[in-house]
């Protein structure tokens, strides 16, 4: 017992020691940077460490030969190799060599810097050097992996890569990352289930969160669904509690009917301008602010009753009417009416009906609100693929061909038919329903989407279950390529539908023909299991339409400086290891805007994004990479050409000692080098990518080391 106590005591001591280290680290950070442009003439002693990466590298090249060659490169003071340089013993080799060999720079020849640059920077730092005195030579992704069967060639290429890296390493300088404070607030764009979950998590973590939704109500696509697979719980029933929570959370500032108009700044300090679109209706709080006592919209609906304009309700996919002043469904959050300006005739009947509440303003204008946030999460969701583009299936041409979203509304008890599935042509109850899966997904014709939309199989199985349950004798026919039931309890759900009587036909639907008299549909396909053509006469066809990126994805990309993958979805920082991050620090992705996801995956990704977005905020400050541009003032002619070239508005001309010189806002600079490459006087020094360093690399390559 006594011994045990001792060990615990030791452990706490050890912990304390670690804690003590932290402030020491910060001190080093605050050291003054070396004077710009000056290369302190200190003899370069570079250590080169060649990694085998098991057989990944060593299997494709002659490491001893590379090592022998490296010894002959100028400035190389030490060479070593190890099976796994990234392992702890491997890092110890670097650590030891730095002190013992009095190295001034470190080159590791291994994998891509995207993988292990941070690892080796830390090792360099632990050895007592500035971490930016490290350079990586990629001899795996760009060498051994692509020249796997060319031993001689890859050996030579590795020699080149290392020689080039050494040339740069000899000229590297000490750099110090800049720490900036992080605003204790976050923003979530889009209030579907992903955005709501992310906002709730952030708010519960004590972070002020602005939740921006372009629609009039939160809830998104999930609020349009009837039931969720495979549990069959009512979508609204599980979603509305979250909607109510969002509406009530003190830390969430909900802004519906609003859009992000402009984003400036960088991680920790995003200045966001939000356009509050004119809603035409004042909330209770807004009315109070205007001095209208007891006024504002209370959702009574008196305005809607008198409004003479009837329009299709988009929430019901156009299958139910609404007025020009409307709410989409009874459970909207916030419970606030909205005026559709495109159809409002400004007759003023609603204003009269609203009376003393004075909630309606027919002349309201858009307002702009500025907020400052530390991090932002994009949860902008998806659009439905316009499946009418697949003309062979006749959507929008044949009345009884509908999409799955229309099916959801028709089967939903709060939908336009009160939950009775009917044929749009005659209102009859269908007895034979065909489901066309992959309607626009996994489609390489150029007239569809090449990717899998991921949740259509499962909701179509659910639809099959729903018609079997609701309409006695009704038979669902599912035309499929593969049933992708990959999630928890999904495969079991698939078996269940098979047992319940769902008919599965493996074959893509070639075309659908309408009988013009009965409005029945003939579904033509090739049954690839029985190897015979199918001509199936059905009452209703449901197309499981693909999902596609939001129409305004490009605008979102530009606003937040994020990228897209080839298929148009917003691009994550790493598909496996950083699925919520983006290449812009401080901007994260949640839900389907990144790629198709079902509800569980969407919520999981939202919680991941919220967690990632809260880290910098809780840290309080973030380190910016010290790769910013700096002005060598004595060389700067003050021409100002660079100022307009900068894509990040990081440069400005300032008066100094009676003349104009360029000045960099370091936190805004991303180190892209546009200005540095352009400057006619060579007055811009790009930290870590300075002209002498790059020229040395080029020389090292072209001259083959014979300088």
């Amino acid at each position: 017992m006594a011994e045990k106590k001792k060990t615990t005591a030791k452990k706490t001591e050890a912990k304390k020691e670690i804690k003590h280290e932290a402030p020491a680290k910060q001190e080093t950070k605050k050291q003054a940077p070396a004077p710009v442009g000056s290369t302190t003439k200190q003899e370069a002693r570079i250590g080169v460490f060649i990694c085998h990466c098991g057989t990944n590298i060593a299997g494709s090249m002659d490491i001893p030969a590379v090592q022998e060659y490296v010894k002959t490169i100028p400035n190389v003071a030490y060479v070593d190799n190890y099976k796994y340089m990234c392992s702890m013993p491997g890092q110890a080799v670097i650590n030891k060599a730095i002190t013992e060999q009095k190295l001034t720079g470190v080159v590791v020849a291994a994998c891509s810097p995207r993988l292990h640059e941070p690892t080796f920077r830390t090792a360099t730092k632990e050895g007592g050097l500035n971490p930016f005195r490290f350079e990586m030579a990629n001899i795996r992704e760009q060498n051994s992996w692509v020249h796997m069967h060319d031993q001689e060639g890859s050996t030579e290429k590795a020699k080149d890569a290392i020689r080039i890296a050494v040339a740069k390493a000899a000229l590297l300088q000490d750099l110090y990352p800049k720490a900036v404070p992080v605003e204790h607030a976050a923003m979530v764009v889009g209030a579907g289930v992903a955005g709501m979950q992310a906002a709730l998590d952030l708010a519960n973590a004590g972070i002020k969160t602005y939740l921006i939704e372009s629609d009039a109500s939160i809830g998104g696509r999930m609020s349009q669904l009837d039931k969720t697979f495979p549990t069959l719980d009512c979508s609204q029933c599980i979603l509305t509690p979250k909607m109510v929570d969002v509406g009530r959370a003190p830390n969430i500032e909900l802004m519906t009917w609003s859009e992000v108009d402009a984003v400036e700044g960088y991680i920790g300090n995003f200045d966001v301008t939000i356009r509050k679109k004119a809603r035409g209706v004042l909330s209770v709080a807004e009315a109070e602010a205007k001095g209208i006592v007891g006024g504002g919209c209370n959702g009574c609906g008196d305005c809607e009753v008198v409004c003479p304009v009837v329009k299709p309700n988009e929430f019901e996919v156009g299958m139910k009417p609404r007025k020009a002043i409307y709410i989409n469904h009874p459970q909207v959050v916030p419970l606030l009416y909205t005026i559709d300006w495109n159809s409002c005739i400004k007759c003023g009947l609603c204003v009269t009906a609203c009376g003393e509440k004075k909630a309606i303003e027919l002349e309201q204008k858009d307002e702009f609100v500025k907020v400052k946030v530390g991090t932002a999460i994009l949860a902008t969701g998806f659009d439905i693929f316009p499946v009418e583009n697949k003309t062979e299936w006749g959507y929008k041409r044949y009345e009884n061909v509908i999409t799955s979203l229309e099916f959801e509304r028709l089967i939903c008890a709060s939908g336009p038919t009160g939950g009775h599935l009917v044929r749009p042509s005659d209102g009859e109850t269908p007895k034979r329903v065909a489901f066309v899966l992959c309607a626009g997904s996994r489609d390489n014709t150029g007239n569809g989407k090449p990717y899998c939309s991921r949740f259509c199989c499962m909701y179509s199985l659910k639809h099959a279950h729903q018609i079997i349950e609701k309409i006695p004798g009704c038979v669902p026919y599912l035309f499929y390529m593969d049933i992708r039931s990959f999630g928890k309890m999904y495969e079991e759900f698939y078996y269940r539908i098979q047992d319940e009587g769902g008919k599965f036909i493996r074959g893509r639907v070639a075309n659908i023909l309408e009988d013009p008299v009965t409005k029945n549909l003939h579904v033509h396909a090739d049954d690839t299991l029985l190897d015979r053509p199918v001509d199936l006469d059905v009452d209703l066809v449901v197309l499981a339409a693909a999902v596609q990126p939001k129409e305004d994805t490009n605008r979102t990309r530009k606003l937040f400086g994020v990228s897209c993958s080839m298929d148009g979805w917003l691009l994550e920082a790493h598909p496996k290891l950083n699925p919520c991050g983006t290449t812009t620090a401080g901007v994260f992705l949640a839900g389907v805007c990144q790629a198709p996801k079902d509800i569980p995956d969407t919520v999981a990704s939202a919680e991941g994004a919220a967690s990632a977005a809260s880290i910098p905020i809780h840290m309080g400050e973030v380190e910016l990479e010290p790769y910013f541009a700096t002005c060598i003032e004595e060389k700067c002619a003050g021409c100002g050409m660079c100022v307009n070239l900068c894509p990040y508005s990081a440069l400005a001309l300032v008066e100094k000692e009676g003349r104009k010189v360029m000045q960099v806002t370091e936190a805004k600079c991303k180190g892209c080098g546009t200005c540095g490459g352009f400057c006619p006087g060579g007055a811009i020094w790009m930290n870590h990518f300075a002209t002498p360093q790059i020229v040395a690399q080029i020389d090292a390559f072209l001259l083959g080391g014979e300088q």
Partner: protein
Amino acid sequence: MEATNKYAFFLGCIAPNRYPGIESAAIKTSKKLGIELVPLKGASCCPAPGAFGSIDLNIWYAMAARNVVLAEQMKTDIALICNGCYKSIWEVNHKLKHNKDLREGVNEVLKEIDMEYKGTVNVYHLAELLYDPKICGVEKIRASVTNPLNGTRIAVHYGCHLLKPKKDRVWSAPGIGDTENPMWIEDMVAALGAEPVQYRNKMLCCGAGGGVRGYDIVHSLDITNEKMINLKAVKADALTEVCPFCQLQFDRGQIEIEEKFGVKYGLPVLHYNELLGLAQGMSPQELGLDLHGISCEPFLQKVL
């Protein structure tokens, strides 16, 4: 106008031999619409794409190229009235224009008869020219009607070789290229005062093409019968098409269906140019409608 809208008229085989009314209607109706069709002298069979193309493509290329060269010598684009001819002449012309090796091979053959394919003319289906607003257009057709076909329900059969294969086809007028549910011939039918009707299987083959009629008449008629069932269901007064071979299959085919399957439909089948002729006031005799296998009388009673 006559100068710009002059075309070498490629007759094909079936129209002049089986339905001469189509030929006369094409020439006469087009003239009223500002399109002059001049004979393409010395033209042979297109040759039939299914029958020749399935056996020896080189013969198909060479014969079709010869027909094109005749038009090149006239320095006139070709207009034709048959989908099969369109497939042969248009497609071979298109291929020869874009494939140097093929062109050289064909020219080697043509050299024996002192001809050379140069690729200087275009090939059009007359229906395409009638629909193209730059040449004629639906409004002009409507304006030329003196005897509107009011009160009739007319179904359209587009035929396969006109529109397919979609990826190879190039159309000058917008709206023609759709292969799933084209509506442009319906627009031209409506311009005559008739009501175009939709039926299931509109885009199904007539049953004749690709050598099926010649090889296996029962299967061929089975396809035709499938179309006839759907045409009957929508109570069409007549069927129109832009291909004499389709017309043959639907017209003579109905007699053969009666013989082989014992089903009688009695649905008049008229080429679009015949309909246009009727609407422009040509007499049934001028149009040779009495030569049709299925009597056009019930339809004519409604429009005359």
